[in-house]
C-alpha cells in the first residue's frame, strides 16, 4: 500500500514515468581474463619453485608443500605424527626460539602456519613484500631445522589433547569425524585426530626422524604469489632454500577404500542437542579422475551453490534449515561426496527424506539446460574471483602440483567446464549419488529423534568419544 502512494507522488512531482526496467540488463562485452603469468623453476636440490606475480597489494604469499601426509608410512607406528609435527615445527628451530619466530613475523607484517591433511603438509606464509627475503629465511629455517624443544612438544601434546576434548562438544566436529570414518574405513583418509595415547607416545626423536624423511626439497614444491618480480624473487628463494639437503621419500602402503553394500546410519548421541546435524554421502573419485569437472558441476547444481536444488527445497520452500550444503572433496587417492544440513529436532526425518529425494532426482532425470548453464557460469565466474586474491591463486596453483594435474589446468578450466552436457551430469550422479549405499551420519539427541531416524536403515550408535554404544 505504502509503496503505491510513494510512487504516485513521485510521478506527480517529477512529471516523468518512474519505474524500473522490468527485465535484467544484458551483460556487456566480456572483459579480458588477465590470466596470471606462471613461471616454474627448479633448484639444484630438486625443489620445484612456482612464481606468479599478483601485485594487488604490496604483500607476498608463499605455500611450501611437503609429501608428509596422513597416508605417510609412519602413521602405523605413530598415528597423528604428521599433525603433531606440523603443530610444533614453528615452535623453535636450531637457532630461534618459538618467541623469536613470532616476533620476527610481527616485524615483517607476516604470518606463518603449518597444517597437515590427507595428502600433504603445507607451510604457508605471508608478509609485506618489502620483507620477502626475511620471510623466505624464516620459512626455510622452519622447514629445515625445526628443533622440537622438549618443553614445546610437551605443551603441544597437552594442549592438543585439551583442544580435541573441547572439539568433542561441537556437533560439526563430531559429524565430520564420524563421516570420515564411515566412508574411508581402514584407509588412512579416515583419520581426523589422534587419540590421547598416540599423542603422548610421540618423542622428539620421532618428530626429527619424520622431518628428515618427509620435509625434503626434491619431494616438495614452493608457490610464491604476490607483489613480486619473478627473477628477483627466484634469486631470494635460491639463497634461502639452496642448501636444503635432498632425500628419499619412503614408499606408501595404503589399504583399499571399503565398499559399502547397503545404506547405514551412524548416530552420535549428544543429549541436549536442539538440532540434528546430518551428513549424507559416500566415497567418490580421486582428484585426477576424468569425472572431476562433471562431479564438481553436479555438486554445484545439487547443493554446492546458494540457488541450488537442496537450498531451494529445504530452506526456501520448507524452512527446515539455515545453510544446507553439499561438497565434492577429491584427493590424491580417492574422494568423497557429501550433503548436509543442521535442522531442528522435529524435522530430522523429513530432512533426510528430502536430501535422499534430491540425490535420487539427480540420478533418474537429467538436469535442465538452464541449471547446467547457470552452474557453468557460476564455476567460471567464481574461478576468476579466486585467481584475483593471493591466497586463492597460491592455493589453486598448489593443488596443480600436489595432485600432479595438467599444468594447463588454469587456462583450460573454462573450456573443460563448458564442454559438459546434461548427460555427463546425470551419469556421474547415477554413479556417485548412490542413496542405497550412502553413509548417513547424525549427531543429535537420540531420545528426541529416534523414531524419525530408524526407518532409514540400521543404526550404529556412538558416544562423543567415538565408542560404539549399540548396534541394530
Amino acid at each position, binding site marked *: 500500500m505504502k509503496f503505491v502512494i510513494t510512487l504516485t507522488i513521485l510521478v506527480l512531482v517529477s512529471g516523468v514515468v518512474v519505474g524500473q526496467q522490468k527485465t535484467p540488463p544484458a551483460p556487456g562485452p566480456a572483459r579480458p581474463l588477465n590470466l596470471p603469468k606462471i613461471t616454474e623453476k627448479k633448484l639444484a636440490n630438486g625443489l620445484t619453485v612456482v612464481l606468479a606475480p599478483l601485485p594487488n597489494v604490496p604483500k607476498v604469499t608463499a605455500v611450501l608443500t611437503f609429501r608428509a601426509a596422513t597416508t605417510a608410512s609412519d602413521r602405523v607406528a605413530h598415528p597423528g605424527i604428521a599433525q603433531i609435527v606440523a603443530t610444533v615445527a614453528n615452535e623453535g628451530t636450531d637457532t630461534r626460539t618459538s618467541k623469536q619466530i*613470532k616476533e620476527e613475523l610481527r616485524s615483517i607484517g607476516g604470518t606463518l602456519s603449518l597444517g597437515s591433511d590427507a595428502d600433504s603438509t603445507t607451510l604457508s606464509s605471508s608478509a*609485506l613484500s*618489502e620483507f620477502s627475503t626475511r620471510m623466505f629465511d624464516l620459512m626455510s629455517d622452519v622447514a629445515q631445522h625445526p628443533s622440537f624443544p622438549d618443553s614445546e612438544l610437551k605443551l603441544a601434546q597437552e594442549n592438543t589433547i585439551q583442544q580435541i576434548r573441547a572439539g568433542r562438544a*561441537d556437533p560439526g566436529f563430531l559429524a565430520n569425524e564420524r563421516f570420515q570414518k564411515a566412508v574411508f574405513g581402514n584407509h588412512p583418509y579416515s583419520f581426523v585426530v589422534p587419540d590421547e595415547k598416540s599423542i603422548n607416545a610421540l618423542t622428539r626423536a620421532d618428530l626429527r626422524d619424520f622431518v628428515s624423511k618427509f620435509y625434503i626439497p626434491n619431494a616438495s614444491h614452493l608457490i610464491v604469489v604476490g607483489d613480486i618480480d619473478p627473477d628477483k624473487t627466484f634469486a631470494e628463494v635460491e639463497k634461502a632454500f639452496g642448501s636444503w639437503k635432498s632425500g628419499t621419500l619412503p614408499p606408501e602402503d595404503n589399504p583399499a577404500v571399503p565398499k559399502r553394500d547397503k545404506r547405514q546410519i551412524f548416530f552420535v548421541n549428544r543429549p541436549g542437542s536442539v*538440532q540434528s546435524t546430518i551428513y549424507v554421502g559416500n566415497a567418490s573419485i580421486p582428484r585426477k579422475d576424468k569425472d572431476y569437472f562433471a562431479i564438481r558441476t553436479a555438486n554445484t547444481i545439487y547443493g554446492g551453490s*546458494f540457488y541450488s536444488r537442496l537450498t531451494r527445497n529445504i530452506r*526456501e520452500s520448507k524452512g527446515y534449515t539455515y*545453510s544446507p550444503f553439499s561438497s565434492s572433496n577429491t584427493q590424491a587417492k580417492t574422494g568423497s561426496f557429501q550433503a548436509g544440513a543442521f535442522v531442528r529436532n522435529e524435522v530430522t526425518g523429513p530432512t533426510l527424506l528430502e536430501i535422499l529425494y534430491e540425490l535420487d532426482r539427480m540420478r533418474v532425470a537429467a538436469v535442465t539446460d538452464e541449471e547446467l548453464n547457470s552452474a557453468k557460469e557460476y564455476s567460471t565466474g567464481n574461478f576468476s574471483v579466486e585467481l584475483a586474491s593471493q591466497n586463492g591463486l597460491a592455493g589453486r596453483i598448489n593443488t596443480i602440483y600436489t595432485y600432479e594435474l595438467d599444468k594447463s589446468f588454469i587456462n583450460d578450466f573454462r573450456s573443460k567446464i563448458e564442454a559438459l552436457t546434461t548427460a555427463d551430469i546425470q551419469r556421474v550422479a547415477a554413479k556417485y549419488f548412490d542413496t542405497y549405499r550412502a553413509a548417513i551420519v547424525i549427531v543429535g539427541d537420540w531420545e528426541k529423534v529416534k523414531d524419525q531416524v530408524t526407518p532409514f536403515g540400521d543404526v550404529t550408535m556412538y558416544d562423543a568419544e567415538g565408542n560404539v554404544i549399540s548396534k541394530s
Partner: protein
Amino acid sequence: MQRSLLVFLATLLLVLGNSSLALAKPLNVPVVYYKLPNGLKVVISEDHIAPVVTVGVYYGVGFRVEPKGRTGFAHLFEHMMFQGSANVKKFEHAKYVEANGGSLNGHTDFDYTNYFETMPSNRVELGLWLEADRMRSLDVSEDNLKNQQNVVSEEVRVNVLNQPYQFFEWIDLWQNAFTNWNNAHNGYGDLADINAATIDDVRSFFKTYYAPNNAVLTIVGDVDVNEVKKMVEKNFNSIASQPTPPKPDLSEPQQTKEKRVAQTDKLANLPAVATGYHIPAQNSPDFPAMALLVQILQGDDSSRWYQRLVKEKELTLDLSGGLNYFGNEFDYSGPMIMTTRTTYKPGHTADEVIREMDAVLAELKTKGVTDKELADAKVRYRSSFYSQLESSFGKTHLLSVLALFRDDPAQINSLLTPFENVTAEQIKAAAGKYLVAANRTVIDRVPETKTPSKPGQ
C-alpha cells in the same frame, strides 16, 4: 592505475633499500564520490587487476536500532531482502547473480546492514538493477516471512543454541557490559521475538531505514567510471527518498565498578572466560593508541597476553577477540568494547587467568612498551590493513563504511596516518586510562557437571 603505481614504488624501493620502516608505501586507491538528488551516496573505484566487480549497498541500520520485543529483527529483515521485489521473484536474486558467475551475501552488524555481489565485471549493471529493484520495491508476503522466521530460527540454533559456549563472548558479554538496551540486547535475537515479527513490522522498517538517503552504493572493480555513473543514474535516480530516520540514543553511562558474571554451560567440555573493556570513541585522540594496544596485547601469537597465558603460564589454550567483535576500527558507529576470550585448562580458575592478564597490564602501565614492539605493531597493522584491501569486496567494505559513517570515502588513502603516529607514551597512557578493573566485565563460563548418559535404543 594501481598496478603502475606499485611498479613505480617497487623501483623506488630497489633504489632506497628495503629495511627502512619509515618507507611505508603510500596508498592510492582511486575514489569517485558523489550523491544522487535522492540522497543516495555513490562510491566508484576502478581496479583493473582482474575482470571482476563488487557491487555493495550499505544501509545505515543495524541491530542497535531494533525496538524492544523485536530482538534480531534487523537481521531477520536482511533475510527478507532476498524474498523478492517488483521485478525479481522470491530468491531469484541468488539465481541471477549465480547464473551470471557471481557470489552474493548480506550481513547485519551493530550499525549497518550490507548486501553485495561479486561478479564478472561485464555484469555490473545486473548487480545495480538487482539492488535498485529491492531498494525501490521490496515485495514481501506472510508466507515468505514465516519461511524466513523458520530459517533464521535455525540459524540461531546452529550458531548459538546448539553450540558449546553459545557465543557468550558476544551475546552475554554485551548484555552485561552495556547499560543502554540499544547497545546491550541480543542482536541475533530471542527465538520468541524473531517469531513474533509481523508483516507490518517488515514494511515499516523498510520504509524507515531502506531509503536511498540512508544508504551507500559502492562499485569496485574492472569498470569504467563514466559508464557506471550512467548505469547508476538510470537505475537509482527515480527511487524516492524518505524522511531521515530517527537517530537511536546510544549513549552509555561511564562504568564505575567491575562486573563479574558466573555461568554454566550444558554443552561445553572445558571452561572459558571472556572480558570486555569499554574503549574510547573513534574520534577520541586516545583511539589510535588503543587500537595498537589491542594488537600488542592480543593481536597474534607474539602478543603479551598470548605469551603469558598460553606459553609462559600454560593456563589457557587459545586467545581471541579484538577491538570490534565483528569488524575493524572503522565499520561501527557507537560505544564499543574490546573483547578477549580464552579457553582455560581444567584444574585452573578464571581468577588465575584474570590475575595473569592483570599482571601483564600492570607491567605495561609502569614500563610501557619497547620501541621495537611499537614499531612492529605498526608494521603488523599496516600489513593487515593491506590484506583488507586485497579483494574488491574488501575495498568495497572499507569505502562504504567511510561514506556511511564519515561521508568521506577518500579517507581510505590516509586512514593509516593516525596509527603510524602513535607514541609509546600514548600507549602507556591508554592502558592506564581504559584497561582498569572498574571499566570491565568478566564472564566465567564453566561446564555444567554432567551425569553420565545412558541412551537406550
